[in-house]
């Protein structure tokens, strides 16, 4: 025990003291914060005030344009040519020309926006939205449809409250919130297994190429050396996570405070920035299902359970895979040799992340069931299923099998490791690896 803790200590300290660890730990959350804060800041900062001259020949829109923080509209009576000249002289940001024919059904409904360098999308959207709305209103009026009534009709919302009957308490759950949570936690597992698993492999390869390994195993058992490294690196991973969380929250809230960005804007930014959730975006487009509903849904998810499971699946998923990575490191002579053995290890991980979209849509399908039970895919798939409240016995079975998987890969890896670390300059085949499993001590 003393020996293993010495090894863990060394593996941990060597990595934590590295400059690259410090840089990654600081830079990680800074980058993350930038992704969320910069757009929010840019959107909210007092931009240059843009005045848009409006030449309205139809005479319909004088009351329709609403000024906002950045854009204001100024009706003018000069000719278009004069207005264009004024834009050139930077008196106005742009000039909007609304022809008389805008109401004429036989013409194309077109307005013209002249600006010096090309109008920004924001301005363009604002103009289009305003005019379109006004014309729609006018046409509704012409058809004798009461716009207020229509608004009232449109605002009817049907809320679908999904409830899970298998839980004792009929817990409200929100599909979208569950998908987001499932996705994010699965992705965290995926990335960290690779990140830290490869570190284990590199570490072992380093010991092998440095030739220190023979010195080491004349003092300690190969198994101690392997486990010490695996556990040491796991602690490095946990430390980095923790620091990222602390620093990340610190930076986001610190900056938000000083910049005066309120939390809701931040949340919206976060919302806009969820990548890869295609079906989610579709839902967002539907009126009535707004970000706030998703946050309401998030509130119904049992985060204690998810975080506890995230930790469990990270720990044992990592332990199971890093044992395999350790075996790869021991069986290879150089970085380039690792490729052939890395492939079969990566396949179940990549497969899990590929079918993740399917699992989110069908969290109770038989594929979801089996992949969340089988240890090689369960760390990722079970976390996707978790927010959808799978039966407890399935979680228990999956966890038990994962521990079993960890013990099995560790046994396997230890046997490959003790032979592999002493083999130099030999390209190893799978056939040979299988023989190593049965060598005597």
């Amino acid at each position, binding site marked *: 025990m003393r020996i293993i803790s010495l090894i863990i200590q060394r593996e941990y300290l060597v990595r934590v003291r590295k400059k690259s660890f410090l840089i990654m730990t600081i830079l990680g959350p800074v980058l993350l914060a930038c992704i969320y804060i910069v757009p929010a800041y840019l959107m909210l900062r007092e931009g240059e005030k843009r005045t848009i001259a409006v030449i309205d020949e139809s005479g319909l829109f004088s009351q329709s344009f609403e000024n906002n923080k950045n854009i204001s509209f100024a009706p003018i009576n000069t000719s278009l040519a004069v207005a264009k000249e004024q834009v050139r002289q930077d008196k106005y940001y742009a000039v909007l020309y609304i022809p008389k024919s805008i109401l004429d059904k036989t013409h194309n409904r077109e307005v013209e926006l002249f600006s010096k360098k090309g109008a920004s999308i924001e301005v363009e959207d604002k103009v289009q939205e305003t005019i379109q709305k006004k014309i729609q209103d006018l046409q509704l009026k012409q058809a004798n449809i009461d716009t207020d009534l229509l608004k009232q009709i449109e605002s009817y919302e049907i809320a679908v409250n999904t409830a899970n009957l298998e839980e004792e308490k009929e817990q409200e759950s929100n599909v979208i919130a569950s998908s987001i949570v499932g996705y994010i936690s699965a992705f965290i597992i995926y990335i960290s297994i690779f990140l830290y698993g490869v570190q284990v492999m590199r570490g072992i390869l380093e010991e092998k190429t*440095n*030739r220190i*390994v023979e*010195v080491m195993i*004349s003092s300690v058992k190969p198994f101690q050396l392997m486990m010490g490294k695996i556990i040491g690196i796991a602690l490095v991973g946990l430390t980095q996570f923790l620091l990222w969380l602390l620093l990340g929250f610190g930076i986001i809230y610190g900056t938000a405070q000083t910049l005066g960005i309120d939390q809701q804007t931040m949340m919206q930014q976060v919302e806009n920035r969820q990548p890869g959730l295609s079906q989610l975006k579709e839902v967002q487009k539907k009126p009535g299902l707004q970000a706030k509903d998703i946050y309401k849904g998030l509130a119904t998810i049992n985060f204690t359970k998810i975080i506890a499971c995230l930790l469990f699946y990270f720990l044992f998923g990592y332990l199971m895979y890093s044992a395999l990575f350790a075996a790869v490191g021991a069986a290879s002579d150089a970085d380039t040799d690792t490729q052939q053995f890395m492939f079969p290890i990566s396949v179940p991980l990549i497969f899990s992340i590929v079918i993740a979209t399917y699992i989110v849509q069908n969290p109770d399908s038989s594929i979801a069931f089996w992949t969340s039970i089988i240890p090689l895919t369960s760390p990722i798939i079970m976390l996707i299923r978790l927010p959808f409240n799978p039966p407890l016995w399935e979680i228990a079975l999956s966890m038990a099998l994962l521990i079993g998987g960890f013990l099995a890969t560790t046994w396997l890896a230890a046997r490959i490791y003790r032979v592999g670390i002493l083999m130099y300059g030999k390209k190893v085949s799978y056939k*040979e690896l299988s023989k190593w499993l049965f*060598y005597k001590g």
Partner: protein
Amino acid sequence: MSLLSARHITKRYANHTALNDVSIEIPKGSIFGLLGPNGAGKTSLIRIITQITAPDKGEVLFAGEKLSPAHIKRIGYLPEERGLYKKMKVGEQLQYLAQLKGMTKREATDKLKQWFIKFDIKEWWNKNVEDLSKGMQQKVQFIATVLHEPELLILDEPFTGFDPVNANLIKDEIIQLKQNGCTIIFSTHRMESVEEMCDYIALIHQSQKILDGATKQIRRQYRTNTYVLEGEGSLGTLPSEFQLLDLQQLEENHIKASIKISNEASPNDLLQILIPQIQIHSFIENIPSMNDIFIRSVTGTGTTIEPSAITV
């Protein structure tokens, strides 16, 4: 009394037998040479003694007890393939390796300070290993091997990689250690590099021990009663007890002759015959080197290659 006895050790790998029924006895306080060409099985035997691998058959006794993990800290091992953690500081690394051998950090630090003063390398403590030259790293490695004051020290190809100055430094250290009661195993395929230091040797060839015993005895056993004579003059006909094996005419009437003496005669008899004929410059017994002995015991021929010069 033997500090270590390996009895009937057999070790097989998938395609070949590394050791075939090898037994050695290593007396306490001796320097023991484990000699043989590359691939003979020396490293396999060492890995069994250091408990890196286990034998398929046979047993190893350490100070009379069956070899067990408890003995690890009583053994120091300098492998042929040497290495250190490159990105670690010299001092920390040595502390770490010593702690793995069961020393406390404080003990290790105290001992290390003595060694650093002895080798005059105090300024290395905070250097990264990768910043040291190869020879410097070898010194650090040597300290790591002996720091925990092992009773048994195993040195695999100890002098490769050392420059002559450092090789001598290490040689002196080894002799010092022996005087302090340490038992040392040398393993090497370059037999001439260690033979004068070894009290006992074992020759390993093709996974088998072909010869072992005290160095002096083996030498005596393998001597051929052949003498090499150098001098000025000309050699007449010798009596039948003496057989002229080789005669070289050197410049200015000098000769070099190799003469075998039969069991009935002595070297002094030969000298009495030679003195009237030749001005003798040197008269040396041709003692076989370990290399010769090795070749003779492997091939069964009696040719000697380079005489090892020991003046009688």
